[in-house]
């Protein structure tokens, strides 16, 4: 951890005003301080936004919920309304990290957490995301946890969030305030693919502050699930995760949402895969067909090719569970 200045912002506007090159907002701190200790991030100043009044969970006029950016992950997951109306989201949050970290981490920070790629974390190794132009250590290196979709020849890192996978499936909207005022970003547009600028994770601009995440009214509460597959039973990042939401008409799928985690630089969705489900009977064969659409461009590396088959099986399992699920159940 290098030298930095610390100040606490009294308002969102003040925070945005203090944002300058080399300055970072800190709220939960669980990812930022970790990366600062690892010398991966070296902000010259921290603006503490953790006491801004952005921690509420409120109803929206459209019948959805507004999750404050500074609401803690645990408070979000255990919120009665979230559990009832968006069980997939609650389940996703509780599948991530540990109870302690969920008590600290905020919703806004969760969106902006950085990859867990080994090379990103180890400053003695090449990493285009950490040090543009230094190369990608994972390509040709140790890449068991890396991307099978949407990667580039510059970067095969994955986004580590569970929450974001559910938010992608739910088509949440991210509310941002910044030097140019307020704006809304559809969730699918928030995270980028690495391309030739892997150092940039999101479309946020310097000084942008996430203030809230809006959940639309449709929560797929009756038929949804979040399935996370990892190397131990808890407290590990996903090898593959699936957020699945269905609206059923008897045994027929009326609408479908499907997002994958642990496989790409962002939560992975594909309208064509969802279209392959809509209007079709909820059968394993149909689910598998949809999975294959979603995974049609998947490409494995030396250690992670298993993720392609694993993802397909996980999708079938998650959709099966979602289709079977009757009524909202607490996670």
């Amino acid at each position, binding site marked *: 951890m*290098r030298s930095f200045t610390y100040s606490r912002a009294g308002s969102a506007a003040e925070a945005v005003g203090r944002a300058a090159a080399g300055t970072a907002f800190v709220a939960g701190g669980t990812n930022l301080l970790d990366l600062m200790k690892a010398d991966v991030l070296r902000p010259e100043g921290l603006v503490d936004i953790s006491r801004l009044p952005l921690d509420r969970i409120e109803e929206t006029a459209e019948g959805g919920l507004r999750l404050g950016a500074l609401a803690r992950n645990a408070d979000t997951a255990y919120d009665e309304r979230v559990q009832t109306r968006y069980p997939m989201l609650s389940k996703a949050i509780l599948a991530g990290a540990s109870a302690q970290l969920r008590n600290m981490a905020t919703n806004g920070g969760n969106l902006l957490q950085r990859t867990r790629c080994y090379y990103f974390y180890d400053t003695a190794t090449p990493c285009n995301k950490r040090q543009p132009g230094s190369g990608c250590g994972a390509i*040709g*290196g140790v890449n068991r946890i890396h991307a099978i979709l949407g990667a580039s020849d510059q970067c095969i890192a994955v986004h580590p969030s569970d929450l974001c996978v559910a938010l992608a499936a739910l088509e949440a909207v991210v509310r941002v305030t910044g030097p140019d005022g307020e704006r809304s970003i559809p969730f699918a547009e928030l995270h980028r693919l690495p391309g030739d600028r892997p150092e940039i994770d999101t479309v946020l601009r310097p000084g942008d502050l996430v203030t809230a995440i809006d959940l639309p009214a449709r929560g797929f509460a009756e038929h949804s699930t979040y399935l996370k*597959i990892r*190397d131990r039973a808890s407290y590990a990042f996903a090898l593959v995760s699936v957020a699945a939401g269905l609206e059923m008409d008897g045994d027929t799928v009326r609408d479908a949402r499907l997002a994958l985690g642990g496989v790409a630089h962002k939560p992975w969705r594909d309208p064509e895969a969802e279209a392959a489900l809509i209007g079709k009977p909820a059968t394993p064969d149909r689910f598998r067909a949809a999975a294959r659409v979603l995974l049609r461009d998947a490409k494995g590396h030396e250690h992670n090719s298993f993720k392609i088959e694993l993802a397909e*099986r996980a999708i079938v399992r998650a959709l099966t569970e979602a289709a079977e699920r009757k009524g909202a159940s607490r996670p």
Partner: protein
Amino acid sequence: MIAIPSIPGFLTEPNGPIGKPVSRVDGRKKVTGNAHYAAEFTLPDLAHGCIVSSAIARGRITRIDTAAALALPGVIHVFTHENRPSLAWFDRKWKDDDAPKGAPFRPLYDAEIHHALQPVALVVADSFELARYAARLVHIEYEAAPHQTDLRANRANSFTPGKDKGGFQPPPKPRGDPEQAFLASPVRVDAEFTQAAEYHNPMEMHATTVLHHDDGTLTVHDKTQGVQNCHTYICNVFGLAKSAVRVMSPFVGGAFGSGLRPQHQLFMAMLAATQLKRSIRVELSRPQMFSFGHRPETIQRVALGADRDGTLRALIHEAVQESSRNENYVEIVVNWSGQQYACDNVRLDYTLSRLDVHTPLDQRAPGAATGVPALEIAMDELACKLGMDPLDLRLKNYAETDPNTGNPFSSKELRACFRHGAERFGWAKRSPAPRSMRDGRELIGWGMAAGVWDAMQGQAAAKAVLGVDGKLVVSSATADIGTGTYTVMTQIAADVLGLPIEEVTFCLGDSSLPAAPVEGGSWTVSTVGSAVKAVCDRVRSQLIALAGKLENSPLKGVAEEDMVFADSHLIVRNDRSRRLSITEVMRGSGTLSIEEEARALPYLLARARHTFATHSAVFVEVRVDEDLGTVRVARVVSAIAAGRIINPKTARSQIQGAVVWGIGMGLEEEAFTDHRLGRVMNHDYAEYHVPVNADVPEIDVLFVEEHDDMVNALGAKGVGEIGIVGVPAAIANAIHHATGVRVRDFPITLDKVLAGLR
């Protein structure tokens, strides 16, 4: 039979503390935060050191620029190979009690880089955060040289080591004609097994605090399993008088072998303290916990040949392991395979391949934890081919005597382990065919394996001081790394002298105490416990002598063997009304305190003619998701034969913990090396997976009766290692039973299961 010294003051009272589930005597300190570990001692003006680790795996430092670090106010010094003082010259000065053959690594010795994360500089500053910051500013340029870290690519370049490390014998010469017998066997198994490199990763990161006193003496709080091992090392390396340094480790936050050798944070802290003449703490980071010592990666071949009735005809076990360029770390791996089953045609081979890595280091059940699972999977495969129950196959080939030496076992109740373990588990209800048991989407598998570990004993001394108040203090320079040493030694002492546990204090972790070897290999109860018993026996004899001399003593003329000690009293065995309290005896004789010191040695003659070993039978149920390949261990029964169990509560915890290690070894733990960089990449707790609470089910531990009057005066063998041995195999065998998928590469991550499920 070998004549064994009689056991005077021991287990003479049925209600003595030996064998009782006594709660840890250090428990209160540990649950209140009052147990202090190496990084938790301080003096005013304590400096903080941060180690800089090498960015490359092999080559040399061409330039090291410390100017930016030193420019920061509060940075005191940066130690590098360029400014280190002259230190000990000969390799023998750098050797420690656990050093294998070779030249020990010398931190900051020269510009050469021998392995990734090698310590290359120490930044010393006023605060921890400043030292860490300044360490990032040390600019180092390297000239990289080609390196080799891939065992598979280098296995052909292996060599046969000799007796290069204490505690390990080279494999015995082949017996019979194993190759011919294998080819002639009607039923054969021949397979290759791999074991990934594992890191000890105790919860407490390695740390050393050196307290520099005004008189120039040093108190060194080090994370170690052997205070005297470290004491000798630093005195030798830094040319210090033994009396000028005291090494302490009253509490050790786990070690599992990582503290068997002095690690480089000790060197660094000592270097700074002696050069700067001030107190300093050096604590490694979690990634730096991957910069020394690990369970070496291993490739093995096991070939078994058998008759159709299951009689083993041939057993071949070959292993190749990694070691460093500078030392021959050996753990032999294969010898237990020649000991575990009766077989006339056996070949055991063990070779090393030198790689550009730091020297591996004993990790819980070194060798056996790696080798026995390979054998035990092969046995399971053989049982499958024979259509035989795996337990029956093991009983069929049960070794009544040690086939490696022809010697009898001092005791071996493995059969009882099989019987009681199977009964507790319900093994008889197992449906033999793979994939024949399920619960919804989960395939259920039941697997078993046997385990074995050596029951070793070293030499140790202990001191006892009995006060006139009836309080006893016993001490020895051993360690308690969570094993329960404090508690067990207290029980032994209390038992011999008939004292309540509360009246006995056991001291350890201090180099100034009577000599004890490093704590490891499950030998501490045997080694130090024998010394504690011996010294308490002397105190006992003195008390009896004093009691006999007292005027009007009700104990006059009573022979030692007719006396029992209980409730802080000396009591005549056959007339319990004749008694005196210890306090009465001491007051009456005008004795303020009784001080004794004693040394205990192993029964060498008995040891020359017998094999001493602990045994286990492990039964595991796994649940495998048939679609996803995820495995969870649903229940475990571990039946242990380890002689007398001094404390069933702490011993049970030892076995449970070792089973958890077996789950980690079987399913999770693996250091991933990028061989292009020669560097372990998952060097933290997030990506190097050790089991979490949710991975671990109920673990049923049972200790079978095993009487052994040859192993030592306690009849106890030690339980630190035996619990892990066999567990990975039982898991692998259960996975096969559940799924029909045979995985021979540890850890068995879900991708390996999935590959077979396709």
